[in-house]
């Protein structure tokens, strides 16, 4: 709720800035975007991700945490990419998104290896 309120206030400030200082608007847009993102992450997303292991502690808990964490990272990176593309730095955003995708593959390499070892242990 506070996040929505602060977002509304930020948008109001941004509209004012856009009217009086149009050349500085992308800069402040970036700052406000990161402020909002930090608030979202630290108030909502990270506590939720920390609660997950307590909610389910049976089989598959590790995979659930992996899926949730990687979806969250992917979302952060995709929104960052969109934001950078909006203010005209598309290539940098795509690069960072690529880096996050590679990192996700690296995180999942353990699972890949486990499945591959199950499959290869079947072979005579």
């Amino acid at each position, binding site marked *: 709720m506070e996040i929505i309120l602060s977002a509304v206030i930020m948008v109001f400030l941004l509209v004012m800035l856009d009217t009086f200082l149009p050349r500085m608007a992308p800069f402040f847009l970036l700052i406000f975007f990161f402020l909002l993102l930090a608030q979202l992450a630290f108030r909502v997303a990270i506590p939720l991700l920390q609660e997950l292991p307590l909610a*389910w502690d*049976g*089989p*598959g808990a590790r*995979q*659930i945490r*992996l*899926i*949730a964490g*990687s*979806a*969250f990272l*992917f*979302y952060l990176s*995709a929104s960052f990419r969109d934001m950078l593309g909006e203010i005209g730095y598309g290539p940098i955003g795509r690069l960072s998104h690529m880096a996050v995708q590679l990192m*996700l593959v690296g995180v*999942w390499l353990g*699972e*890949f290896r*486990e*499945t591959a070892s*199950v*499959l290869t242990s*079947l*072979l*005579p």
Partner: protein
Amino acid sequence: MWELIAAVAGPPAKLFALIIVLSAAALAADFAVPQFREWTRLFLLVSAGAAAMGPAIDAVRMMDGLVGKMTGLFLGIYPVLAAGMAAAGGALSLINWNPAVFLFVQGAVVIGGKWMVPLLIVSFILDYLSRLVPEIPFTRISEMIRVTLLGAISVIIACYSLFITATGAMAWSSGSALAEPIKALLRQHVPLIGSFITDTMGVVGKYSSGMAPIAGSYLIVALLVTSLSPVAYVLLTAFLYKWIAALCEPFAHEDLAGFFDDIGKTLFVLCGIMLIVAFAIFYTAVLSIILIKVIAGAG
């Protein structure tokens, strides 16, 4: 019986819980981050794939162990058995014993172990890979492997019944009128291998009804239960996979349900191979009993 069912149903039940939980997580991730859909599918298949294969791999391992034991048993016992029966003399007239049957039974078990089980494993892996990467499908080749194996199994079982009726004086005498409806029911309602089950029942029944006066009917029943319990284990596992596929279809990913369905189909083929091995176990045990009876002078 209940111990068998519990032992068979335990791992698939755990697997089902795991699939429910993982599917719920994947659905939540899809809902929260729709751009992540492709990745979620991949990660779900990767993390569920290793767990999903567990009970099926156990069944394949059991099959492998049984075939190895049977090959050792054949190599060890059949020279002694053949020599003993030839020396005793009476056994030859008793069941019109034919050395070709020995060779055939051993050959069938060796073919089952060396060719059929690896082919089956290959079809497991191809199914999984074609679900994991839908752009490179191997569905037709794994279906082809299954159909080929079913053809080979049906030929071997037909040869079994041919041998028994040609060489033995075994009459399917007792309870045939009672068994026919059960056989018809099994043939229609067990997918893919129902007719094999009924054929093997007929072959084993022919043999056992001839053996019952010699070996005692309780012993024959015990032998039947012992040799057919691996078949029952694999059949139950296959049905449980089909059940999991049917139960998780509404909420799980489509590929996951299809993968379980494929595993079930493959396990039905494994059940057919198991029948060949079960027949070999039964045949060897009955021949040993006959030999002992002949040596003891009761034959």
